[in-house]
Each structure stands twice: as C-alpha cells, then as structure tokens.
C-alpha cells in the first residue's frame, strides 16, 4: 500500500465518521429545532475544527510511521488522483444543481446549505473510494 493510498484511506474514514456524526445531528434533533439556523452553523464550525485536527494528527502519525514513503508520489498516483477527481467532479456538480434547484423552489436556507454540504462530502468520499478502487483494481 503506497503512502497516498494510506492517506486516502485515513482521510475517507475521517470524513465518513465526522460528517456521519454531523448529519446524524443535523437531520435528527437539529432539523426540528426552531433555532436550527444557529445550531447547524455552530456545529459546522466544530466539524471543521475537528476535521483539521484529525487530518493533521493522522497525517503526522502516518508520516512518522512510514517516514521513507512520506511525500513520495509518482505518475501512477497522479493518474489515479486525476481520474478520481474527475468522477468526484460529476458528483459535486449534481449536488450543486440539487442545491440550486432547492433555491429556485424558495426552500429554506437550512436545507439549501445541507444539500451543498452534502454534495461536498459525497464528492470527497466518492473521490476517496474511487482512488482506493483504482489502487486495488488497477489504473
């Protein structure tokens, strides 16, 4: 497993865990709350801080454990990154169109924001999963 593959696996797992927690709260208790506009904004700040900390700590740990592989990428890594980025781009565009659709239907800002955040997260997770599949299956 290359360093890039380990890094992708770690970041994808962190994204799924953190945003799984975020959407469990936002689509559950927060969606029904009268103060949801304020509540989700505060939660979003906490999520971003948590993501930065987890990503930094996990990558530092990976770089220490696999010192010789750290910051090494080659033509295969770049090819896989390009292909998975293109797949993620389609997912992101679809999600953004959904957000625009909600705005055109005069939906609540809360739901437009969740659609856009969801699109970003699903696109990132799609990129990670596509990379992992390409590393395993061949690119």
């Amino acid at each position, binding site marked *: 497993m290359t360093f890039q593959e380990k890094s992708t696996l770690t970041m994808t797992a962190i994204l799924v865990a953190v945003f799984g927690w975020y959407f469990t709260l936002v689509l559950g208790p927060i969606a029904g709350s009268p103060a949801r506009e304020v509540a989700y904004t505060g939660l979003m700040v906490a999520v971003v801080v948590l993501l930065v900390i987890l990503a930094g700590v996990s990558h530092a740990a990976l770089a220490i454990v696999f010192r010789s592989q750290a910051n090494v990428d080659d*033509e*295969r890594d770049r090819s896989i990154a390009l292909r998975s980025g293109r797949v993620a781009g389609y997912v992101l565009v679809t999600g953004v169109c959904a957000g625009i659709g909600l705005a055109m239907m005069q939906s609540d800002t809360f739901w437009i924001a969740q659609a856009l955040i969801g699109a970003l997260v699903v696109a990132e997770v799609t990129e990670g999963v596509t990379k992992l599949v390409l590393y395993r299956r061949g690119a």
Partner: protein
Amino acid sequence: MARPTQVTNRITELRVAAGMSQAELGDLIGVTRQTVNAIEGGKYSPSLEAAFKIARVLNVSLEDVFQYPGQIPVARSGKRPGHAG
C-alpha cells in the same frame, strides 16, 4: 475482472535475471515499489518515459520488455492511419 491494459511485459523475468528488487528498479526509474508491482501485474500502463527508462535500466529494447498483442486497425488503402505519403 478485465485487465485494465492489453500491454503485456517481461519486467519480472528481466528484473529477476538482473538480480534487482522491485524497490531498486522503482528507485532507478523514479516510481514507487508498488507502481513497479502494478506494472508487472498488468494493472498499470506506465508512461512512455517510464517505459523507456525500464528498458534502459534492464539493458534491453522497449519491445523486449513490452508487447502489445492487439490488432492495429489498417486503413482501406492498406496504410496505417496517420501515416503520410
């Protein structure tokens, strides 16, 4: 599962004959050991530059390392597409 490339190669055979590990070959051509493994297993087609480097390091010609078994479509005139004259 279908192989991502039709290109086959003799890198493993030539590398072992040269007494070289995947990591050593990777270091010489500027790719990781995992990429050498993927090329040897037919999971990844290297760039033209990497292919030339592999042939150079193993001291053989490009076609001694890589083979393409597929048919090349021939134009009606009997000439290969893209060839002038």
